[in-house]
């Protein structure tokens, strides 16, 4: 479904991604691992049209995405749930959700809204509250819910666990996995918490300084000594750091 071939992205004179190729076939969860500055967020921003690649092609079901306006890409069903969530704090929870379905028709949006509130009942209770009053976990649920309002074929999730208690992280990850099965969309998951990401994903790619160093089935990656050392905590495996 999603096909990225030899993607190069630069910030001014500095190249951040040096030829990335990734394939994803929905319903599938793929995690992208790597340290800070490895280019993970850059990759997601490029797919959603915020950044334009200097070289390479991104296609979704054969349609070329690169060079398109972000709004067109969203219309095609690629929804980006960004790092830091970017919820509108002074808008109500409901208004935030409505904006997630900016392009949908009224019936579609009503159905989607019902589905989102069913999936995250806590949002139903807070529907008319300003979004800025939500707790970290609730905010992440709102961000996910807002993403679901856009009828995604492909969901780009950037650091959903950021700033969350581990228990809540697990809950959110479980929900993502469940939603993928129910709705049949694909998920590209960028995550610092490599262990948890690999737990719910089918395959994974390891990004180092803008290049793919390793890729494979999640189980294999978990067993890989290199990955263990760099991202799963090496000698502190026992305590799971």
């Amino acid at each position, binding site marked *: 479904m999603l096909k990225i071939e030899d993607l190069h992205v630069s910030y001014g004179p500095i190249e951040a991604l040096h030829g990335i190729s990734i394939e994803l076939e929905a319903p599938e969860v793929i995690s992208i691992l790597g*340290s*800070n*500055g490895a280019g993970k967020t850059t990759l997601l921003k490029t797919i959603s049209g915020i950044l334009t690649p200097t070289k390479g092609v991104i296609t979704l079901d054969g349609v070329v995405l690169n060079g398109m306006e972000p709004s067109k890409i969203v219309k095609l069903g690629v929804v980006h749930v960004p790092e830091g969530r970017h919820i509108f704090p002074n808008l109500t929870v409901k208004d935030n959700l409505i904006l997630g379905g900016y392009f949908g028709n009224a019936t579609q949006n009503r159905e989607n809204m019902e589905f989102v509130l069913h999936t995250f009942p806590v949002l139903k209770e807070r529907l008319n509250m300003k979004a800025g009053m939500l707790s*970290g976990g609730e905010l992440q649920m709102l961000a996910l819910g807002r993403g679901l309002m856009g009828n995604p074929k492909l969901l780009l999730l950037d650091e959903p666990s*950021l*700033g*969350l*208690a*581990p228990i809540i992280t697990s809950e959110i990850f479980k929900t993502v996995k469940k939603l993928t099965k129910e709705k049949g969309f694909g998920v590209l998951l960028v995550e610092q918490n490599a*262990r948890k990401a690999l737990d719910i994903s089918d395959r994974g790619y390891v990004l180092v*300084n803008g290049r793919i160093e390793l890729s494979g089935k999640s189980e294999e990656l978990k067993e890989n000594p290199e990955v263990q050392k*760099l991202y799963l*905590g*090496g000698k*502190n*495996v*026992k*305590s*799971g*750091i």
Partner: protein
Amino acid sequence: MLDIKDLSVHFGSLIAVNTLNMKVSENTIHSLIGPNGAGKTTVFNAIYNFVPYTGDILFKEKSLKHVPTHGLSQMGISRTFQNLSLFYSMTVEHNIALGLHPTAKSNIFKDISGVNIYSQKGIKEKIKSVAELVGLTQLLNAYPLFLPYGTQKLVELARALVNDPQLLLLDEPAAGLNSAEKDYFKKILLEVKKRGITILLVEHDMGVVMDISDLITVMNFGEKIAEGTPEEVSENPEVIQAYLGVE
């Protein structure tokens, strides 16, 4: 050296730090760890009076409660930030030089008669020696905006060190560094400690924390859940459950 007593910080109904007690002893590297939102940075911000708090914070038996932010560096406390706070219109040299603001003496006549105190000999020497310590000697005339992120962090560290602080607060210094840079950073911090400077470190990277800390305090939901040496902490069941995760 630093004594935090019953520190509580509230943001509206949210309790960011809840009756925290901790002591940082002289000439140690003391790390503060915990998940995001556990209240670590808030502790720094309380020390800097960026947020109102209850309880007390003592530095060498003196309360910091009514010391304004700009008074801290004169007392011997300096810090770096999670998000860099460099002066981007200035060279690396001047960025470091401004760390000497509290001690560099000037007056109105010097100000308008063209005496550039930051180019005086003693001050230049100081800048040079701290630049050497963190490895910026070659870059003194560069502008930080054009330097890699890791190097910019070193500029901020140098700025915090140049005024010979007694206590150095570091907020996630290793975030965004690659592993080679992290190793380099660890070396510098150990060297800083050797010079008699106490370090309070907030850091996510367990590799860095476990390798160089003398003592670790673990926070979760604004409260201290454990304290001890790296070995003790990494075997503490509560820490594993709440923060490190169960294997």
